[in-house]
């Protein structure tokens, strides 16, 4: 490879401007995060400050049971469009948790199991099939997974389990799990393959066969990474929108059953924001929910990152 390069004489001004331009752009991600926080939170602030909005959506009314009609027992209710609007976040919280829990129950065994197989047992050829397959799953747009859950999975579940409602937490949770599997798999597999060779060799020298090496040495060493994958997957399950919007039935029911319809935080924003009046109580509460989602996923991601960084340090420290 022979290249002919001719450089024009140095221009200090151009160098200076170029460097500053690049540096300025490099802060785009940081600025974006700050702006997102500022602008989503800004629209939610009236919940804490505006007395008109607090009439219907005070902190107390968002969280605790309310006696909506005199003489009736107090309850939680999300009915923003009724004549006496009710903005209790609890049914939405419960719905989000239900859908995310099912997603995790579905995704953890499959994601971690497949990661263990890919890292410990699979031949090179099989690994060349598993990894692209997971990448393909990750590439499926969430609206397509939502479509699949709505049109196909819901019918299958209803027929095999004899359910009353087609769209429910179970249906949404399984579809959500499909979106979580690639995250759990990728992070867990990455952690296991980065366990240093010396650890494996040591266990083998002590007489362990391959699966004993995995179980007693690799898995414990990679455990924080697997945990990080689960944590990050949970963050995705809570924030994911289109799948739950299409597959969950969107009824804000309070119950312990996983076969009832649920309404999640994210789906509530997606379904209601288009129809609200700019700056109204409903609008403000939806931005409040958005702020909650943002803060929650921010903490989850920060936590996941810290775990992974520590693990990396520890594993690399062991080689040296």
């Amino acid at each position, binding site marked *: 490879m022979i290249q002919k390069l001719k450089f024009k004489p140095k221009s200090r001004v151009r160098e200076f401007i*170029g*460097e500053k331009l*690049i540096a300025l*752009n*490099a802060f*785009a*991600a*940081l600025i974006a*995060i700050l*702006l*997102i926080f500022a*602008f*989503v939170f800004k*629209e939610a602030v009236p919940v804490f400050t505006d007395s008109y909005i607090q009439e219907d959506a005070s902190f107390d009314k968002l969280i605790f049971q309310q006696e909506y009609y005199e003489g009736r027992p107090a309850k939680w209710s999300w009915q923003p469009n009724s004549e006496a609007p009710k903005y209790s976040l609890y049914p939405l919280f419960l719905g989000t948790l239900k859908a995310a829990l099912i997603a995790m129950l579905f995704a953890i065994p*499959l*994601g971690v*199991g*497949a990661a*263990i*197989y890919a890292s*410990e*047992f699979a031949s090179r050829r099989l690994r060349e099939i*598993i990894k692209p*397959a997971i*990448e*393909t*799953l990750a*590439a*499926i*747009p*969430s*609206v*397509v997974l*939502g*479509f*699949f859950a*709505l*049109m*196909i999975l819901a019918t299958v579940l209803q027929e095999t389990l004899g359910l009353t409602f087609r769209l429910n937490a179970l249906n949404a949770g399984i579809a959500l799990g*499909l979106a979580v599997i690639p995250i759990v798999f990728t992070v867990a597999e990455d952690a296991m393959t980065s366990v240093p060779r010396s650890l494996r060799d040591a266990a083998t020298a*002590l*007489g*362990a066969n*391959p*699966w*004993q090496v995995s179980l007693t040495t690799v898995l414990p060493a990679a455990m924080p990474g697997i945990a990080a994958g689960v944590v990050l997957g949970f963050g995705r399950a809570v924030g*994911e*929108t*289109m799948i739950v*919007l*299409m597959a969950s039935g969107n009824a804000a029911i309070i119950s312990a059953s996983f076969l009832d319809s649920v309404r999640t935080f994210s789906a509530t*924003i*997606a379904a209601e924001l*288009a129809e609200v009046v700019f700056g109204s109580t409903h609008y403000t509460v939806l*931005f409040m929910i*958005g702020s909650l*989602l943002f803060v929650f*996923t921010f903490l989850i*991601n920060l936590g996941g990152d810290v775990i992974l960084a520590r693990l990396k340090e520890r594993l690399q*420290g062991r080689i040296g």
Partner: protein
Amino acid sequence: MNHQAATATPTTRPGAIVTLEFHPKTRGHIPRGLTLAAVLIILVILAVIIGNILIGGISTISWEFLSHPPEQGMEAGGIFPAIFGTVALVILMVIAVVPVGVMTAIYLHEYTPPTSRTTRLIRVAINNLAGVPSIVFGLFGLGFFIAFVGGGLDSLFYAEDGGPVWGQPAIVWAALTLALLTLPVVIVSTEEALRTIPPELKDASYALGGTKLQTIWRIIIPHAAPGILTGSILAVSRGAGEVAPIMFTGAAYYLPYLPTKLNDQFMELGYHIYVMATQSPDVEATKPLLYGTVLVLLVLTFILNSVAIMIRSRMRKNRAGS
């Protein structure tokens, strides 16, 4: 002696000394079988999803379907405006995201030491940006781009026009919202490519009298081109499939015209799928068109991803070879 032992195990780790006993007869069929089952279940689910969409959608696909607008309340006709809108959207998005993403990667890799506080801060921001729920991007697009930027432009320049010009859902706001969402994808891919450039090339450029900027422009960017391309394609694939961020920032149920200006609304494939699947008065009548649209979006996504994977694996092989 003691000192040496201390340096060999630098940190106190609980369980650093482990007693391991192995039963030589256990063969590990059960864990192997269980984890293999997990792999097989995932593969089967993937095959079922793709197979179903393929079988359900293939008969709908025709030139008519791809080149005509929806008719009779989306129960007939095609999806041309949605395809057009999606393409226009991702082109605008790429124009916005690629320069910023590439410059960020170059800054992180060429200008600052990897352990500096600035670098770490930017990295934390990138990782967190990648984890922000897509619906929050939608809220942000509405609150920032439409209300703040668009509304601001309107009150500055179009005050006498009456109605909103920029302070309303529009393709440019949707594209910018998606650009923020896909920024981490472009940064990560470009950085991977930057790592494959041998330092000798840079040294040679400096030795010939090249400045830092000239080296970046003439050596680093051309050599990182495959990575930049991979990142752009992955960003397009991601952007084309996202619905939540564009629902309030520019996508429309149905439009009789194609978007021609930056402040027009537009139709989009993913949003079209959502609308047909959930808002249709007659689900059975729209079903073939719905399946066809899903197939088009899925094929588009898969083609983009395979191309990106191919470029990336070639890049990695080159690196291994050199």
